[in-house]
């Protein structure tokens, strides 16, 4: 654990990995969109509208996955006080909020066609909306304190409290009668979705995930650069303060 908690090591490691994940995510997203739009067959019920699935479902997976990651890194930050864990959680949260928003908007477009309405207040949609608000609350809380350490710790506790929402999202389609269709990929007894649709979906999901990993590393590097910048500026202020008061330093 501690080997990865070293910021300098992270900067070296991420600089080596970043170009690969970035390039691979671009290739996979390009290939995925090509397969989704040109190769995948239309659904026998939903027709061409099923193509929305390839951008909607990966966004939904990422929305939950990123929240789980925020909660996990928050727990690590609270228990072992790793500075990198805090940075990882705070860097991941806005990305997760972005995927959640994407999930809601594309889902709304899909629902508008298939259900004839842009929004229904069923359990799945409501719990994902709550997830979006949890992301926003986390981001607001982290930035609400003058002392950054306070915000990080408070945010970490909130992230852990919000974990109760994840099983609700996952099982909402099984527990309640909803318009939203049940899981067709991650289920006991194997996927119910046709292979010609499954492959483009999995490629898109991998592309989304790698894009997230790339952006997460970029944001973590940004946060580390900012920390370095703060330290440099602080050192300069102290040096100037010392040069302004030569007598006092001579006396002491």
């Amino acid at each position, binding site marked *: 654990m501690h080997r990865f908690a070293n910021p300098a090591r992270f900067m070296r490691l991420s600089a080596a990995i970043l170009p690969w994940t970035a390039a691979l995510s671009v290739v996979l997203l390009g290939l995925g969109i090509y397969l989704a739009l040109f190769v995948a067959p239309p659904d026998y019920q939903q027709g061409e509208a099923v193509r929305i699935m390839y951008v909607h479902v990966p966004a939904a997976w990422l929305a939950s996955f990123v929240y789980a990651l925020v909660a996990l890194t928050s727990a690590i930050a609270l228990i072992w006080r790793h500075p990198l864990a805090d940075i990882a959680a705070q860097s991941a949260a806005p990305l997760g909020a972005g995927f959640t928003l994407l999930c809601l908007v594309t889902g709304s477009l899909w629902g508008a066609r298939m259900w004839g309405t842009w929004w229904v207040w069923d359990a799945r949609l409501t719990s994902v909306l709550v997830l979006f*608000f949890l992301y926003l609350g986390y981001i607001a*809380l982290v930035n609400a304190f003058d002392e950054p350490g*306070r915000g990080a*710790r*408070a945010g970490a*506790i909130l992230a852990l409290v919000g974990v109760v929402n994840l099983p609700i999202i996952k099982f909402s389609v099984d527990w309640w009668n909803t318009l939203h269709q049940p899981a067709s990929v991650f289920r006991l007894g194997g996927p119910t979705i046709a292979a010609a649709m499954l492959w483009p979906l999995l490629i898109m999901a991998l592309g989304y995930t790698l894009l997230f990993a790339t952006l997460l590393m970029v944001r973590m590097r940004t946060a580390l650069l900012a920390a370095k910048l703060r330290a440099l500026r602080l050192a300069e202020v102290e040096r100037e303060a010392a040069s302004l008061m030569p007598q006092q330093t001579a006396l002491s």
Partner: protein
Amino acid sequence: MSAFRRLVLRDLRLAFRQGGDAAMVVGFFVLTIVLFPFGVGPEPALLARIAAGILWVTALLAALLSLERLFQADWEDGSLEALALMPLPLEAQVLAKCLAHWLVTGLPLTVVAPLLGLLLHLDAAGYPVLVLSLLLGTPSLSLIGAIGAGLSLGARRGGVLLSLLVLPLYIPILIFGVAAVEASIGGFAARPHLLLLGAFLAGALPLAPLAAAAALRQALE
């Protein structure tokens, strides 16, 4: 146990000395409810249809109103640090504070709600379940609110932040509270909804003090 009781009594005394938190909360509840007939029109059928939802949403906002001050005064005058050093675990103290908060908000709201139901032409079948659902639901509001109050201690714009943190977590309570009342009016069983409210309370009772105490500890660090 006696330390727990002393803490509850202390908070109740403070609440009443500071000019009646309960009166303020109930006043807000009544006034906001009275606004609705002007806003949506006075037709009894329409009001009866939305009465359960209005009562629950307004009760929720009224409970939120006094949450900001749950730990604020103790934090500002430093007595929170003294409380943290007491032999009684911080979790139990949070529970005591939630109980005191519920006694001056949730309980009065539950008592007043049926009277306001009359103003909104709530169906006669709904009253017992309305009271029962509020009795089961409002303690959860205080408990979950304590987490938000602890987390937003000392934050900039703490009040707005608190509602942003807490309101999403209140949604399930609102859903099942309203569903219980509507079910009883429509002639369906309210029991499953009430049981879910109870389950929510049973979960919040141990977990919320745990999280709120953790929030207080990090605020004191």
